[in-house]
């Protein structure tokens, strides 16, 4: 017996190992690539755990991508062009879907959303995830440019939030000439994608665009006028400090958040941070739609993230279930309540819990409804890459807006010739 016991034990261990191994084979692991989760990652983790509990047999492994979206884009392009199946579900910036779809890297998800269900989403993101009539991703959360203003300062000097750019200039000049250490208006002017988002809001609100009916109209008089105005904010009206030419979202958010600016253009994420306890601007911040020129109407650039499935994924069905789960109304509501991700489903903006916890979401509804996607084209990323340095040069005063946009046009024409 004494000899038998150890061998029996070993036997049992072997059997158990084999069993565990077999169990493992039935479990499918879905790898989910996404950017860094803003704020506390715990609620997001709990959401993934809930999915695993509801779907025994599917495990989710989430992997964080590099911080800059350009690097994320490059990661996807290199891996997907190499037909990598190392990840199943990918979160994509709103501007990538047509490109990835055209390259054949995304699974067609049209069957996941009925016509009726598509109407439940905001129109902008729905346009952005469609390519040639098919749906290649599902909108996960939404973003759009908004104008932050200092309620207290505007009240003190008897102003209403500006509706036109000229009003904004007038108010900012009035206030900064009477208050100390205050910038008038800050925005994102570094040479990167965010600059294109900023510039488009001026172009659109002056009736301009990059493409119109498939034609390149980047050097239109409307755009030149709008870009000149951006330069004038710094050089002529002096309400924007030159530091914006190197600023991304966070530096501008810090400046405004420490109470050193009257106006700021940014994405809605900043609101929750301003309203935290201990914030110097708590209760003093208002949000309005972007101003416009007399000729045009207010326009916000659409941002946000979408979930798609790698065409080379080995477990597309499980991946589909996961995408459906994360984009469901319930999951979107959880993420909105906990980390402030703005839902892509319109009905959630009437949700009582959400309105109670984030009253500011009601005002955003109109903004999201009117948010415009950047040109929905497989060539958008290439166009943006040539546009960024030109816009940057114009804002820094190295090139005239006319020169910059003419040069951008030559490059964009050259890129689009590929399609002929």
């Amino acid at each position, binding site marked *: 017996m004494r000899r038998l016991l150890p061998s029996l034990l070993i036997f049992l261990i072997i059997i158990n190992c084999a069993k565990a191994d077999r169990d493992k084979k039935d479990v499918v692991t879905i790898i989910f690539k996404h950017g860094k989760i803003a704020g506390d990652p715990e609620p997001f983790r709990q959401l993934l755990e809930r999915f695993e509990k509801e779907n025994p047999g599917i495990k989710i492994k989430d992997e964080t991508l590099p911080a800059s979206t350009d690097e994320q884009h490059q990661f996807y392009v290199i891996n997907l062009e190499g037909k990598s199946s190392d990840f199943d579900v990918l979160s994509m910036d709103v501007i990538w879907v047509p490109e990835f779809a055209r*390259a054949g890297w995304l699974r067609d998800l049209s069957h996941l959303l009925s016509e009726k269900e598509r109407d439940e989403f905001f129109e902008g993101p729905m346009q952005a995830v469609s390519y040639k009539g098919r749906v290649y991703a599902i909108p996960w959360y939404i973003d759009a440019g908004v104008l932050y203003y200092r309620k207290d300062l505007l009240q003190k000097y008897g102003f209403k939030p500006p509706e036109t750019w000229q009003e904004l200039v007038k108010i900012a000049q009035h206030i900064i000439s009477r208050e100390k250490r205050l910038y008038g208006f800050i925005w994102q002017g570094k040479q990167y994608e965010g600059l294109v988002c900023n510039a488009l809001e001026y172009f659109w609100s002056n009736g301009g665009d990059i493409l119109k009916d498939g034609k390149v109209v980047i050097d239109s008089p409307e755009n030149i006028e709008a870009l000149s105005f951006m330069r004038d904010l710094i050089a002529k009206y002096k309400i924007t400090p030159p530091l914006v030419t190197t600023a991304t979202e966070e530096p501008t958010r810090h400046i405004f958040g420490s109470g050193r600016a009257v106006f700021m253009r940014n994405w809605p994420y900043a609101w929750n941070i301003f309203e935290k306890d201990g914030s110097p601007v708590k209760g003093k911040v208002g949000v309005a739609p972007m101003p416009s020129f007399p000729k045009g109407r207010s326009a916000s650039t659409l941002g946000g993230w979408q979930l798609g499935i790698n065409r080379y994924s080995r477990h597309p069905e499980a991946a589909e279930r996961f995408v459906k789960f994360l984009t469901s109304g319930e999951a979107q509501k959880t993420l909105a309540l906990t980390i402030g991700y703005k839902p892509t489903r319109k009905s959630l903006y009437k949700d009582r819990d959400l309105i109670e916890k984030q009253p500011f979401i009601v005002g955003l509804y109109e903004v999201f409804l009117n948010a415009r996607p950047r040109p929905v084209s497989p060539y958008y990323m*290439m166009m943006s890459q*040539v546009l960024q340095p030109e816009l940057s040069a114009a804002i820094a005063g190295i090139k005239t807006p006319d020169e910059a946009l003419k*040069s951008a046009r030559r490059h964009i024409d050259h890129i689009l010739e590929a399609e002929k």
Partner: protein
Amino acid sequence: MKEPESGNRFVVPALLLLSLVTVYPLIYVFYLSLQRRLLIFDISRFVGLDNYIFLLRDDRFWNAMKNTAYFTVVSVSLELLFGLSIALLLNRQFRFRGLVRAIVLIPWAIPTVVSARMWEWIYNTDFGILNYLLGTEINWLGSPSWAMNAAIFMDVWKTTPFVAILLTAGLQIIPRDLYQAAMIDGAGSWAVFRKITLPLLKPVILVVLIFRTLDAFRVFDAVYVLTGGGPANTTETLSIYAYKVLFQTLQFGYGSTLSVIVFLCTGGISLFYVKLLSRGMK
């Protein structure tokens, strides 16, 4: 007669290997440069010299060319100047000479990407030590007039040691008796430097210049990490432009055209130096 023939035979494997790893890619890049090629969309079309014609009218290319030339000329001249001064100092006898030589090498020993990140913080407008020491609030990497000079300064800091060490080695080959003879003849130190040190150091200086000029002309990592080519492309060098076209916008045709131009320029520079060097040897 026999010996050279067998010699040729021995060279064949090396030649084959070289053509495999350098000549073939070169020809392939040239072939790509005649195409409109977008890999991800399966587009590839022969367009002849179309890319080259576009390049001539591409002001971003000329801007990159200008930036590269400026970077190369300024950084290499400064490195030579400082490197030579340090080499002359290191060539003297003094205590702890070995230790000082080792310390001088440190900037060269740090990987470029690491030192670029380090300098990014040194140059930081709000928290950087440079503004703190100078008592200024200059946006070194963000202002179009400063960014390129800031990048050059970092490169000079990093590569001067390399130049200094090579030149020190060169100085030590110069026979001592020449200096003694000059001293007996009553030559001043400037005359000694001009008539003895400089001419005898010339071959080493030329080798240093070849290395440095080619490296500076192809500069990528230091500037890319420091500024990414911004602000407003004032620090975009040819290599950065080619990289962006190739790997960010994935236009393999036009990107290859830019690479061919970089190759032609560096080829021209090396030919020029090799000519100069062979004349110097005679």
